[in-house]
């Protein structure tokens, strides 16, 4: 029944699930590339500053909203003010679309676990054509999609403690252990120190406008601040739970993982520079970040490892298992708030809701499998622009419409460190200003806007209007 209250079994389970939601593909293929591009190790300075002034306050806010209102994003916004329900639906539909192409990338990753195990590309020359061959072959991608969606569906279908909590209890420690193996291998390769020098040697570039924007944007996305996932995860906390320190641990574990994994990536890039005898990373004929890093650079590097092809198979497979686990624990946190929104409004049971959501998103991901060129223009809206202004409004709504005193009074009695007046300053002033700048900069500098982006935005608005206009079938939610 929809009224059955589900809780996390242990606080550790909640924190691991939140860390699982936060650690995603971007921690592995984006953070270290941003460091390299934006002043090396000096990039850590704006990164950590934004972690403290926007990341942790927003994480505390999302946890507090879920913990106080006990529900999904549409329910939270509706309880603050009836007319704001549409914001909750905008955020929810946004992640429906986001989850569609996110799961497609996970399907590629899953296929690559198999391809790595048999070193399907055989030689360095075969790496590029193998990836191109995969993305232009939807039937093979479909196999990865079916497996990814079956596992995700079963996790969410099994419930909060028996599904999500149990999955993250195993997945997150495994992720760290496998990453440690890659970090050790990366750092013991010849040339690895050259790579680490390129990653960490600081320069003043870290304090330019674009580097600051990159740091703020990365903090927002790396912590899974989507106005949905973490709100719903926190709504499953039992009464008298701790909020601020749980947010703190989640944030530092997530950023600590990015920093840790950067040594694997850049140790391997250093080895690649050594093997290919090039002087700078920019001279390498392979990408240093994004999907290209995962599907081209790492397979190229592991193909050149001493002891290949056995070591290629072992370390290639380990890398793609890490990538898949990071993405999988994020995908379950995308499915959960969509189901929760349907449960709150329409009284749908978990089994029906999770099955319906998984089926719709699976079908949507097939569209992206046939048209991977749609990912960039759609992502510009749902994976970037839309999220930034929604999270900005979330802060404004909580700060000015709801009033943060309500949340602080609810959270502080059980807090391991108290939310003071500083919380108001960050949520009401600093977060909206920083996010407005990031949003404006993103719109001005983007190269991804197309009619597809505009169509995506229109679909979002129309769907949110329809869903927010429908009647609440769950009586207890009608005020």
């Amino acid at each position, binding site marked *: 029944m929809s009224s059955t209250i589900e809780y996390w079994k242990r*606080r550790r389970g909640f924190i691991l699930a939140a860390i699982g939601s936060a650690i995603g593909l971007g921690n592995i293929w984006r953070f270290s590339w941003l460091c390299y591009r934006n002043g*090396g*190790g*000096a990039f*850590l300075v704006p990164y*950590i500053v934004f972690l403290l002034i926007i990341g942790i306050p927003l994480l505390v806010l999302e946890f507090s909203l879920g913990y106080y209102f006990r529900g999904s994003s549409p329910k939270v916004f509706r309880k603050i003010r009836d007319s704001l329900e549409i914001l909750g639906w905008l955020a929810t539909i946004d992640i429906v679309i986001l989850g569609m192409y996110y799961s497609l990338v996970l399907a590629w990753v899953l296929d690559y676990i198999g391809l790595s195990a048999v070193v399907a590309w055989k030689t360095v020359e075969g790496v590029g054509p193998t990836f191109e061959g995969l993305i232009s072959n939807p039937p093979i991608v479909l196999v990865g999609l079916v497996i990814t969606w079956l596992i995700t569906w079963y996790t969410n279908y099994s419930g909060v403690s028996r599904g999500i909590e149990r999955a993250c209890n195993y997945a997150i420690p495994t992720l760290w252990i496998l990453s440690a193996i890659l970090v050790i291998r990366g750092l013991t390769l*010849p040339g690895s*120190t*050259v790579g*680490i*020098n390129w*990653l*960490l*040697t*600081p320069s003043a570039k870290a304090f330019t406008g674009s580097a600051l924007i990159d740091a703020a944007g990365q903090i927002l996305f790396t912590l899974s601040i989507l106005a949905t996932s973490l709100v719903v995860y926190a709504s499953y906390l039992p009464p008298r739970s*701790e909020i601020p*320190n*749980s947010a*703190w*641990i989640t*944030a*530092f*574990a997530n*950023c*600590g993982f990015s*920093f840790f994994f950067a040594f694997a990536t850049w140790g391997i890039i250093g080895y690649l520079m050594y093997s290919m005898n090039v002087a700078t990373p920019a001279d390498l004929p392979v990408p240093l970040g994004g999907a290209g890093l995962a599907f081209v650079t790492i397979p190229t590097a592991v193909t050149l490892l001493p002891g290949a092809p056995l070591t290629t198979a072992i370390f290639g497979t380990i890398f793609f298992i890490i990538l898949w686990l990071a993405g999988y624990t994020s995908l379950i946190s995308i499915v959960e708030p969509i189901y929760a929104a349907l449960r709150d409004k329409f009284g749908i049971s978990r089994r029906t809701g999770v099955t319906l959501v998984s089926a719709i998103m699976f079908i949507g991901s097939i569209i992206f499998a046939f048209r991977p060129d749609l990912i960039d223009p759609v992502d510009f809206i749902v994976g970037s622009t839309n999220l930034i202004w929604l999270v900005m409004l979330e802060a404004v709504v909580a700060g000015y419409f709801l009033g943060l005193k309500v949340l602080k009074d609810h959270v502080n009695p059980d807090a*391991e*460190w108290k939310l003071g007046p500083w919380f108001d300053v960050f949520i009401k002033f600093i977060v909206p200003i920083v996010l407005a700048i990031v949003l404006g900069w993103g719109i001005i500098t983007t190269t991804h806007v197309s009619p597809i982006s505009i169509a995506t935005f229109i679909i979002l608005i129309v769907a949110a209007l329809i869903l927010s206009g429908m009647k609440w079938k769950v009586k207890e939610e009608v005020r």
Partner: protein
Amino acid sequence: MPELSAGAITMLILGIIILYGGLGLGIYRAWKSTKAKGEVKK
């Protein structure tokens, strides 16, 4: 084999202290609070 530059070592130490120090501080607070609750129960 080239060694790590002084700048790289500085940033490495900074990253370790802040990121893992922050994580350690959070875990320590949680552990202290759990311990205190356990003592109250006793």
